[in-house]
């Protein structure tokens, strides 16, 4: 889509930036990554009243152009790089009308880059409610830029903002804010000459940030470094001077444009809620209660849609089998592709519900209170209050959770969070656990109230949290860091969640999951199907010839013979050979070569286990009898006629799945986030070792 004007959306966190973005673009948006980094890039399109089309880029929320976290570092480079395909023609700065002073700091920095700017004065309705009086015309006059009052939540002022965008100047007309040159006069002059820019603030920003800017050549960056040394430039002192100067300018701007009542209504209202939600006792009880409710909801609300999806795919499989001619291609389509698809689709309800909860908790402002309450405990084990969000998210899926660690500014805290998040029981382990628990744990109640199977599942979830905390505690002593951790965080006022955003996040996350995980699972299903349907050399022909001999056809019943043939074929197929290769290693854990195949395929994604079991035992079993995977596994016998899935084997398997790093997507995302192969490698090794040890111990204890 070609746009006539490119607009960048900039603002502090919690100013309603994404709501405004949604209001401007509707569903006409796409999500990608900024080039070279994994920071999420949201681009949308908006039709302007003059018929032109605007491309709107939503930049991560930040309090200043000096980045504190990975996400924030993208803002300056997008705004500053003139040749980039993202370089904006116009910047819309969103300001929270209820907190203009702090919001204007970012505005004055952005304005000094001398790109045309418009101010969207958001939450104007809340400001009125809190009796904050803003002289908008005077504010616009003093700053020299258009100021458009909007309420993104109520969709007020959106049309006016679009009009302002279409009438925006091609040249920056904003008033000078502070005397930038005074901060480091000689250095700014030398850099301006070196880089050939006439913007002193751009030159100053290069002095601060040149090490992290991709658009500078190494030679340019080195030259700036030299100049800094020459002029003995001290980055932090310069930042302090600049910030003080900016706030003094902001006070000048605000003193005759804004009148604030002594206490804002919203604040006191929020205070009352905080008294309960962060209470010494009730605070934790409510938090636990919300978590419990969330998990109950994830399991119980998703049960019905999940069974619908399963039934739907069973219907499709049956239908396809009737329509298509029998043959290897049809088998590949039905047992490989469709079975694999159904394995992915069935998770959609759980993922959507979990992300609905997370987005509600974040939107209302509750998540930052959880961070506030938990920081002290988390710090003790080497984490950070902000690690709570990825850890809770880990119950759904480690991939988005690891991406959400970008809000943790401290490197060591962030690395430890990334390393332990995959230990938390994610939704992909759930089908493995449910299947195995249903197999070996009796479905009855103890102490009238607790269901034994439910208790076993709860135990697995608790174990995952405990192991994450223990591993974090150990890593706290292994990782060395000179960087200081800090925790300076806004506690936004409580607000009702924006249901549009919640729905949008559910849709977006489910879509990403299906596309990302779907690719892996379908690929694995196809590979597995091929591996188990073909054998090296002419082994299959030999088996068929062997069982055509009269001593077999005469003495064994037809059905029984078929079963023996297909079972021997599986054992000799590529998959079977592979399973046999690793059998000696997994024997001490109680696993046979068939489970070995499932373990290998599960290293792509854990949920593949169920599908693999289905494939292996349907190849193995009697094709005429349709039974569930669970039935098939229950009836599986070893060479001595003993059941394969005993209590010891099932628990050993669960322990293995609890600890092992069996997820290609997680490994990929850890690499993307750390930019170093040693992190995912170390994670893979430590988790596999833990998994082996835990499985070995539990098998030998229960045997």
């Amino acid at each position, binding site marked *: 889509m070609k746009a006539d004007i490119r607009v960048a959306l900039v603002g502090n966190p919690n100013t309603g930036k994404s709501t405004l973005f949604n209001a401007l673009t509707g569903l006409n948006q796409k999500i990608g990554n900024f080039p070279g980094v994994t920071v999420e890039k949201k681009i949308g399109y908006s039709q302007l009243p003059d018929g032109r089309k605007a491309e709107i880029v939503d930049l991560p929320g930040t309090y*200043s152009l000096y980045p504190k976290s990975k996400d924030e570092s993208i803002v300056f480079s997008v705004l500053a790089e003139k040749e980039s395909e993202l370089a904006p023609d116009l910047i819309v700065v969103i300001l929270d009308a209820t907190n*203009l*002073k702090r919001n204007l700091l970012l505005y004055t920095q952005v304005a000094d880059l001398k790109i045309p700017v418009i101010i969207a004065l958001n939450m104007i309705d809340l400001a009125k409610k809190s009796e904050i009086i803003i002289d908008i015309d005077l504010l616009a006059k003093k700053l020299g830029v258009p100021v458009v009052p909007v309420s993104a939540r109520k969709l007020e002022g959106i049309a006016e903002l679009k009009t302002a965008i279409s009438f925006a100047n091609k040249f920056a007309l904003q008033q000078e804010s502070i005397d930038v040159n005074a901060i480091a006069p000689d250095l700014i002059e030398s850099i301006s000459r070196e880089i050939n820019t006439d913007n002193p603030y751009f030159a100053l920003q290069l002095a601060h940030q040149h090490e992290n800017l991709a658009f500078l050549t190494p030679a340019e960056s080195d030259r700036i470094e030299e100049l800094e040394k020459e002029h003995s430039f001290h980055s932090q002192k310069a930042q302090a001077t600049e910030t003080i100067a900016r706030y003094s300018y902001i006070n000048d701007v605000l003193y005759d444009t804004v009148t604030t009542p002594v206490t*804002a209504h919203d604040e006191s209202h*929020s205070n009352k809620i905080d008294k309960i939600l962060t209470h010494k006792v009730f605070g934790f009880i409510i938090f636990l209660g919300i978590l419990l409710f969330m998990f109950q909801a994830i399991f119980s609300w998703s049960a019905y849609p999940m069974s619908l999806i399963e039934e739907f795919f069973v219907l499709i499989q049956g239908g396809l089998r009737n329509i298509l001619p029998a043959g290897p291609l049809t088998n590949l389509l039905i047992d490989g592709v469709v079975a694999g698809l159904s394995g992915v689709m069935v998770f959609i309800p759980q993922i959507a519900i979990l992300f609905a909860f997370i987005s509600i908790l974040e939107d209302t402002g509750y998540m930052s209170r959880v961070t506030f309450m938990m920081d002290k405990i988390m710090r003790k084990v080497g984490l950070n209050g902000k690690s709570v969000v990825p850890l809770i998210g880990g119950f759904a899926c480690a991939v988005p959770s690891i991406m959400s660690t970008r809000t943790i500014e401290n490197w060591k805290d962030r690395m430890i969070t990334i390393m332990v998040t995959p230990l938390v029981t994610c939704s992909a382990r759930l089908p493995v656990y449910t299947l195995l628990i249903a197999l070996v744990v009796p479905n009855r109640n103890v102490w009238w109230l607790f269901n034994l199977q439910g208790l076993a599942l709860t135990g697995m979830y608790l174990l995952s949290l405990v192991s994450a905390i223990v591993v974090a505690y150990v890593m706290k002593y292994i990782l060395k860091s000179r960087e200081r951790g800090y925790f300076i*965080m806004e*506690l936004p*006022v409580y607000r009702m969640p924006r249901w549009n955003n919640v729905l949008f996040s559910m849709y977006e996350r489910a879509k990403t999951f299906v596309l990302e995980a779907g690719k892996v699972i379908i690929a694995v299903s196809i590979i597995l199907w091929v591996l188990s349907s073909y054998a090296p050399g002419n082994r299959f022909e030999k088996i068929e010839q062997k069982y055509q001999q009269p001593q077999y056809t005469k003495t064994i019943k037809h059905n029984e013979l078929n079963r023996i043939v297909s079972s021997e074929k599986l054992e000799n197929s590529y998959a079977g050979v592979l399973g046999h290769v690793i059998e000696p290693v997994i024997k001490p854990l109680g696993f046979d070569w068939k489970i070995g195949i499932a373990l290998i395929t599960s290293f792509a994604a854990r949920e593949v286990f169920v599908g693999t079991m289905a494939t292996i035992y349907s190849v193995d079993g009697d094709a005429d009898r349709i039974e569930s995977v669970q039935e098939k596994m229950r009836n599986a016998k070893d060479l001595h006629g003993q059941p394969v899935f005993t209590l010891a084997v099932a628990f050993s398997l669960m322990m293995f799945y609890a600890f092992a790093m069996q997820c290609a997507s997680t490994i990929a995302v850890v690499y993307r986030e750390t930019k170093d192969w040693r992190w995912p490698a170390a994670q893979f090794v430590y988790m596999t070792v833990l998994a082996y040890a835990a499985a070995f111990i539990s098998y030998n204890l229960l045997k």
Partner: protein
Amino acid sequence: MTLSQLEVGEIGIVKEFTDLEMSVKLMEMGCLPGEEIKVSRIAPLGDPIAIHVSGYQLSLRKFEASTIILQ
């Protein structure tokens, strides 16, 4: 007197900072010399604290609060 020594509900005015690195971050968030700070609450486990400053609520650890010297 530092910010970490204030009780809940008490008010102080920022005078200066003991730590340059921390001061840059705190000032960006609106904790400037001359600014009034009120301690709104302390986290259930005694750390971090929540303060009211320049029209909004900010949370910071006790250690960070101890780098803010009050008038």
